């Protein structure tokens, strides 16, 4: 590719982010899509692949005697610190990467060149995996109160809205069009979620163009129609997710918010979520705290607090809780908007849906939710995630905040979600990676123009195909606490720092043992045991037959028996504790893959790192579960168990 000035540099050092003394030496390759670092240590074939589209910034630092440092920050919070010995090479890599990581047109994006080994028919089916209409009909729509409106076919009324929208039965096209003219970018009030049990609905729109005194009859009729679609309620909430000051400031620009006097029976409410610029700066500050190499307790806690990040997460969650309670407990419909209705509005609607409806807490349901509230309603993914070169002021971690809100809820309700943390992190990664077409472009219309469905693959079916990796072993769909409305706590100590995402690549910082991995191993094992059970049952019946046979023709049967038993033997061996998941059925007992390997973190090699004995960098938590051979020679308590496991470890 023409942008690669230098395809390969040898003798490059990759520094560990925590401890700069730990470094790996290898070769750096630039390809059209990835930066690849291959460790050249004998015996290890350790490769680090980084997608160009995930690169957020490339910085060349001042040269040092040991070489020229190149710092790569990624959108998935990976930070790579290379040292390239020759400055010229570093310069070339720097320039190449800068160009490669900032595609100038959509066509350069990875999704258009990503070609897994899937035939065209399957690829098409990938896109049929999620069907939003099915979700609406799951909600009981269309119904006598809500109808599918064709008004935005061909994106004539609002070019950032989806083509298919649900509106109140009584909303006629003139009312909709009139209302859309009174709303920023024509984003008129449309249905986001409908609770068929009590008819309460969550609708979303952009801000009204009310200025200081403007009114619009159709818009007032539109809200009236929404109110009337909920026969049980005599008022509705209008939630403006902005801080009041921001909304007032918008009035000077001819925009603003609804005047309670002009609309019949609305209760108007600000919830005070800050705008995309505040969020961008806040995350930046938080990431700086994450990157501190050995922060003191006050650096960390005060830095985290002053970044305001958790406060913003709380604000989003609070708004979601307000709406969810209005719908579930009061049975009142809610109209939500912010300025344009594609950032805060998407966040808040989604959080409310997750709290309200257990369906959105399942794997498929959560995908549907993102597809609905974010992809189809025109969250500007390509701008917010900087998929292509553009205005840096448009970039903001709005989707990160949604994922984090859900993660915080998962921490509070460990049994309520079918999916696990890894699922959220994978989605986060691919929102930015551009490997799949789902998040390319800023709205449905753009995606159609880009022919995304014809040219790319879908993340959702990829996730679904690998769903075993993303399943939460603790999930209890039938449990009363996981049903219905989740009553989340928003006290300050309920919000945790999400190290799993923000320090995702700092392996030294990860939990020594993960309960989740452990439980997953147990579930897998349970499955294997079930299989084993049936195979045993079969074996017994075989043996019974054999018995009969052997009664008749005695000696002959025995010689064959070892082969007949072979699987059984393996089972016997495999059942030693150290590899109870590894090889039950296919049993190769010498390679235990059981809890030991799962619970022992990947960074086992770090144990031997002599640097720790100086005790100087405990910040990274270098040491892991280390191991030692059995206590003494005569400790025969567990004859079989330990040795294999430890030597393997």
């Amino acid at each position, binding site marked *: 590719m023409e942008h690669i000035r230098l395809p390969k540099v040898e003798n490059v050092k990759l520094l560990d982010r925590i401890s700069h003394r730990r470094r790996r030496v290898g070769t750096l390759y630039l390809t059209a899509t990835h930066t690849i670092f291959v460790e050249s240590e004998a015996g290890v074939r350790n490769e680090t692949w980084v997608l160009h589209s995930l690169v957020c910034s490339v910085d060349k630092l001042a040269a040092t005697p040991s070489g020229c440092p190149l710092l790569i920050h990624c959108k998935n919070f990976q930070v790579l610190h290379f040292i390239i010995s020759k400055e010229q090479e570093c310069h070339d890599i720097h320039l190449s990467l800068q160009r490669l990581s900032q595609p100038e047109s959509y066509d350069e994006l990875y999704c258009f060149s990503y070609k897994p080994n899937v035939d065209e028919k399957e690829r098409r089916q990938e896109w049929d995996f999620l069907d939003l209409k099915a979700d609406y009909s799951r909600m009981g729509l269309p119904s006598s109160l809500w109808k599918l409106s064709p008004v935005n076919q061909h994106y004539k009324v609002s070019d950032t809205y989806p083509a298919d929208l649900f509106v109140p039965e009584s909303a006629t096209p003139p009312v909709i069009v009139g209302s859309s003219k009174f709303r920023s970018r024509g984003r008129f009030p449309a249905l986001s979620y409908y609770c068929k049990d009590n008819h309460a609905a969550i609708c979303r729109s952009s801000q009204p163009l009310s200025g200081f005194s403007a009114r619009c009859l159709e818009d007032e009729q539109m809200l009236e129609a929404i109110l009337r679609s909920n026969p049980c309620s005599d008022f509705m909430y209008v939630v403006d997710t902005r801080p009041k000051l921001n909304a007032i400031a918008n009035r000077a620009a001819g925009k603003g918010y609804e005047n309670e006097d002009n609309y019949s029976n609305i209760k108007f409410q600000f919830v005070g979520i800050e705008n995309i610029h505040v969020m961008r700066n806040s995350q930046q500050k938080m990431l700086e705290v994450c990157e501190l190499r050995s922060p003191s307790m006050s650096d960390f806690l005060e830095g985290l607090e002053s970044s305001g990040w958790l406060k913003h997460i709380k604000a989003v969650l609070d708004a979601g809780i307000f709406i969810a309670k209005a719908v579930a407990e009061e049975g009142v419909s809610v109209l939500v908007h912010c300025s344009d209705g594609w950032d805060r509005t998407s966040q808040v609607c989604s959080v409310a849906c997750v709290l309200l409806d257990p369906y959105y807490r399942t794997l498929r349901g959560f995908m549907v939710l993102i597809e609905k509230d974010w992809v189809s309603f025109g969250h500007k993914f390509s701008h917010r995630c900087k998929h292509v070169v553009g205005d840096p002021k448009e970039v903001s971690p709005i989707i990160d905040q949604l994922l984090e809100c859900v993660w915080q809820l998962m921490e509070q309700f460990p049994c309520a979600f079918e999916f696990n943390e890894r699922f959220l992190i994978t989605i986060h990664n691919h929102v930015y990676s551009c490997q799949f077409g789902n998040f390319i472009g800023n709205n449905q219309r753009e995606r159609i123009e880009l022919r995304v469905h014809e040219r790319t693959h879908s993340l959702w079916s990829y996730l679904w195909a690998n769903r075993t990796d993303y399943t939460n072993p603790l999930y209890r769909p039938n449990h009363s*606490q996981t049903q219905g409305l989740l009553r989340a706590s928003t006290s300050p100590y309920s919000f945790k720092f999400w190290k799993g995402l923000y320090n995702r690549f700092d392996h030294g910082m990860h939990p020594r043992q993960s309960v989740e991995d452990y439980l997953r191993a147990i*579930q897998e094992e*349970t499955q294997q*045991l079930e299989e084993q059970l049936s195979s045993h049952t079969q074996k017994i019946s075989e*043996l019974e037959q054999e018995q009969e046979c052997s009664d008749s023709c005695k000696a002959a049967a025995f010689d064959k028996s070892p082969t007949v038993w072979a699987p059984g033997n393996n089972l*016997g061996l495999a059942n030693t504790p150290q590899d109870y998941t590894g090889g039950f059925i296919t049993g190769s007992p010498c390679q235990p893959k059981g809890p030991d390997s799962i619970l022992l973190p990947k960074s086992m090699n770090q144990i031997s790192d002599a640097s720790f004995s100086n005790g100087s960098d405990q910040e990274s938590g270098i040491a892991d*579960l280390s*191991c030692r051979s059995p206590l003494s020679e005569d400790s025969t308590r567990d004859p079989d168990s330990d040795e294999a496991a430890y030597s393997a470890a």
Partner: protein
Amino acid sequence: MEKSGSVDSLGSKRSSSRQPSVDSLSSTSTSRSDRSAQAKPPSAMSSDSVSTSAEFSPELRVKPKISAKAIRDSDKEELQLLPNETVQDMAQDVTYFCPFTGALRGTVTVTNYRLFFKSMDRDSTFMLDLPLGVVSRVERIGNASSRDVSYGLVCKDVRNLRFAHKQMEDTLRKSIFEVLMKFAFPVSNGLPIFAFEYGQVFPENGWKVYDALSEYKRQGIPNESWRITKVNDHYELCDTYPSTLAVPVNIPDEELKRVAAFRAKGRIPVLSWIHPESQATVTRCSQPMVGVNGKRSKEDEKYLQAIMDANAQSHKLFIFDARPSVNAAANKMKGGGYESEDAYQNAELVFLDIHNIHVMRESLRKLKEVVYPNIEDSHWLSNLESTHWLEHIKLILAGALRIADKVESGKTSVVVHCSDGWDRTAQLTSLSMLMLDGYYRTIRGFEVLLEKEWLSFGHRFQLRIGHGDKNHTDADRSPVFIQFIDCVWQLTRQFPAAFEFNEYFLVTILDHLYSCLFGTFLCNSEQQRLKEEIPKRTVSLWSYINSQLEDFTNPLYVNYSNHVLFPAVSLRHLELWVGYYIRWNPRMRPQEPIHQRYKELLAKRAELQKRVDELQREVANRSASSASERPGSPTRSITPVQTFV
């Protein structure tokens, strides 16, 4: 100890009164009904991140079956007296100012063991059950002229409780809180601590859990380098040390006495733990009496050399002084100090920068202000930071980690001391032993660890906690042991499958640290406990715990006995122990019974495993019977499968 059987618990739900109290007043009918569906005590505490406000009234826990029965019958939702517990006073129309739900009127009963408050004010019953041992201070609030008299109870477990009642018309009659004061501070009033009266009998005798000789034997002591000495049999060498000590083989008892003269309070270096392979040891002692003139002791130097020589793997010895170096130097003025590397060849001295008991007391006091009763939303993290509590936890864990690493990876023996060697030293040795030796991560092993490193080696529980003593400003009080348990909790968070016990176990230990129901934490040293005949006259906490192990067992436990735990002491890994410090706050309600789910998953696996085993055995039997005459059958005897529940 606030409990409220709310509306529905009055009816039939057995366990709801075991639930954490006030929160039931607030909301969530869904979660409540669910919780009350699980009748068994272990499920009452549950949940992983948040948990265990469960119920902290020992009488219910001690006799779970009885109480469960009693509570089912709503009329008997009354105070259940323990053996030898007697009612001392009762008062009607007392107001309890609950910081979470507001004022409640009800009846107060004071016994020689507890304060019991019950209110039927609201549509639900509210109960508060507080062992008097928890009370640190009772103060009368307001002036005598007002019609109401108000009392504040400052508790050792981060609570402050406020009560008020009408001015007594009969001026001769004492307020119930005056009565309470008498029984809350029995030591100051010449009364016996309740532990001496409590006569409950448990199936197991917890006093037998620890036997010094068998614990040393488990470690392989005596061996060619270490011997057990009887020199302290009558506590003559050191009255704060246990009678059984392990010392290097080639140092005769006479020399030990000379070493004792050079160590503060005679606390000579003795063995705490020995590495089964490398023979590297963890030894503990007090500071050397170096003084301003830099005094030396040949015997002490020889003694440390002997400790080093007992480990052939290394020609070095690490001395960990838990204090900040400034404090250690300041101690020279008082005759103490630290080992100079000139005098002790091959020894390397490391300061671990852990602060003294006064700093820790102040830190916990600040923490209490931040978490109780209400938490300020806007500055939670910086307020938490300002207490420095997590910073202290971090330093202690980091110190223990360095010790464990030296012993395990460096194969080097270490000597640990602080000033007197009974606070920070106990924290460090016991935490590093917990990391090094999986035995201590079992329930019984942990009990042994506490009995050995804390109780027998003379952590001054009586002084640090102030059992039954009204002198709440005593500068000897300090949360050293709480800090240790907090550190253990942090370890269990990082290694959820490495500990046999659960969070409830740790909370229970801390609750009974104060309750004075059991004799375990009474007195300051082994000698005192012997003199007071504590094992004869009181019940051990371990009797109670070991009689219902299931409640305290971690379902995820895997016996990693031969693994060494090296925790990450990074700040990102340390958390405030919400389940202990903020458990009184109804906003911190257990969200989901996650333990329950763990158990289900594990039980299903175990069940299947059992069936597979049975079938396997059957397969084996059948094949054995059909192949009886074939020698050397390939069928390997079935290895018993380890199940983890």
